[in-house]
């Protein structure tokens, strides 16, 4: 059994928050799309991997931050285009066909990644040094703090966008009631496309944040996607706040379970993610922050 020290606990919580921020951003991407279109995008993780590969290629020609921003823009454009071309025609189709479409996209994008960049593992640069800094006798890694900063910063920006801009308001209106939004002059279709763009950019962000620690390869986001689903379900699939809180909680829980529960170790983390999904769906299907909706005939 490991000796329990406060400094170790603090380190584990902070690095849990860092991975939690990554799960939270991908979960938020899933929630953004689910809120407006009632579709769970199974291809979200593969889209994130693809854009991370784009960032990797760009970083051979420019320094980190310009490549980072350019990747977010490319991801945004790609997300909008994808919604317009592929998702638009099935807007009113049943759940099953949309799920299958997104699984088709998952396989397609995964194949494209390994076709273009090969399936060998690549190292991805980190924006932050891995050097530790000491705060009150506890050593934290700068990378963890940086990842927390970037993910929470992106979430805060997004919250401000939804709260204070006219487009943000329109997007919220479309998520709540597409029919009536259309009547007051909101261009519903473009708002949905915008949502896909933002989700793709968030996915790219999470991919670029997770790549330095898990290394870049075509299946990189598969397990992250499972954690993001768990986070989104935990927080409630239609609650953006819930996705972020769920992500951070899950990150910390996974890290603590991996460190202090000998049985879990590093291998059963995925099983813990699955257990979280099942437990939440059984006990409180709406999640922590979600609304309960009555079923209709």
């Amino acid at each position, binding site marked *: 059994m490991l000796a329990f020290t406060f400094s170790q606990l603090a380190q584990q919580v902070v690095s849990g928050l860092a991975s939690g921020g990554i799960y939270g951003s991908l979960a938020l991407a899933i929630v953004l799309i689910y809120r407006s279109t009632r579709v769970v995008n199974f291809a979200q993780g593969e889209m994130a991997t693809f854009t991370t590969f784009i960032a990797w290629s760009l970083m051979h020609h420019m320094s980190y931050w310009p490549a980072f921003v350019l990747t977010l823009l490319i991801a945004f454009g790609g997300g909008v285009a994808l919604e317009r071309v592929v998702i638009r025609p099935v807007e009113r189709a049943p759940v099953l066909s949309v799920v299958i479409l997104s699984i088709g996209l998952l396989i397609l994008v995964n194949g494209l990644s390994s076709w273009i960049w090969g399936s060998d593992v690549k190292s991805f640069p980190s924006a932050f040094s891995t050097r530790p800094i000491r705060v009150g006798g506890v050593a934290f890694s700068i990378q963890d703090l940086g990842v927390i900063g970037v993910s929470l910063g992106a979430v805060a920006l997004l919250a401000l966008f939804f709260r204070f801009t006219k487009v943000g308001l329109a997007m919220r209106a479309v998520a709540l009631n597409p029919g009536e939004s259309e009547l007051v002059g909101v261009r519903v279709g473009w708002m949905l496309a915008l949502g896909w763009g933002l989700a793709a950019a968030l996915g790219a962000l999470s991919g670029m944040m997770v790549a330095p620690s898990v290394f870049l390869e075509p299946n990189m986001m598969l397990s992250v996607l499972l954690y993001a689903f768990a986070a989104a379900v935990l927080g409630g699939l239609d609650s953006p706040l819930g996705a972020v809180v769920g992500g951070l909680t899950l990150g910390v829980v996974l890290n603590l379970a991996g460190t202090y529960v000998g049985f879990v170790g590093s291998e059963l983390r995925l*099983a813990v993610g699955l257990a979280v999904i099942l437990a939440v769906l059984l006990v409180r299907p709406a999640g922590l922050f979600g609304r309960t909706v009555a079923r209709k005939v």
Partner: protein
Amino acid sequence: MSGRLAWSLRLAAVGVAAAVAAALPFLTSDFLSFQLARMGIFLIAIMGLNILTGYTGQISIGHGAFMSIGGYTTAVLASQHGVADYWTVPLAGLLTGLVGLAFGVPALRLAGLYLALATFGVAVATPSIEKRWEGLTKGSTGISLLSFHSNHWLYGLTWALAAGLFVLAWLIVRSRLGRTFKALRDSEVAASAMGVNPAFYKTLAFGISAFYAGIAGALYTIQNAYVSPDTFPITLSLYLLIGAVIGGLGSMAGLLAGAAFVEFVPIHASGIVAAISPFDLNTKSAGVPSVLLGLVVVVLVLALPDGAAGLLRRVGSPLTRRLYSRPP
């Protein structure tokens, strides 16, 4: 056409098909009978998935994981307890069916998307659980079977079982049980108002389809004479669902096409892409089969609502009817 004539035509067709199927391994290469045997295994798994997804309307992205339970049952019984490997097949089916029933208990509370999410989690997490459970599974090393079978023998076993299971699936689908499944698929609320217990029947559907997956997994393990946590990756689960969709969900006969698609398209993908691509591409990459498969699925789902004419519609017509004529 009179009923009797139609029936005798059908019987004749089945007879011819059976004769062709029995003669096929002797007319083709040994390797092709290996592939055809594997196609039969996919067919069995897809038949089970079809009962769950096509007839009951429950999406499972985790059938590869259920196949792995059957696979490990066979491997453990055959290698550690000395049971002849073909006798483990029914046991593998029953055990996996029980696990499916157990999983169906939480699953019955999950509608549509949530079940898809949960089964996706199962597919992703199962290999890591199998790696961790070393006492039984030997971890990443995997378990080798000591038995050896010719490809003709495997072909015969697989297709005989596939034929039997096809008849079983057909009987289920045509029975009162099948009608109950369809009623649940079309409207759960309306079906329960008519006295159907959704929890019970959804769990049962899950159990039946897991039974099929378990048998497929056992056969897969016998064919490879080896099983490891990586034998049944998430890709396999996705391919099975795609096979069911391409075969036309809710139709039994189209499943043959779905199984053939899943078996043969990835193998010949690089040739197909090289033939249809106008550019000079390196089509030997590992990603090419996925690109082709994903593209076919996306195009199929997109093209069908617009009523794409010709072959595409004929191949997918059960799909169009099942997928697009219902309210969401």
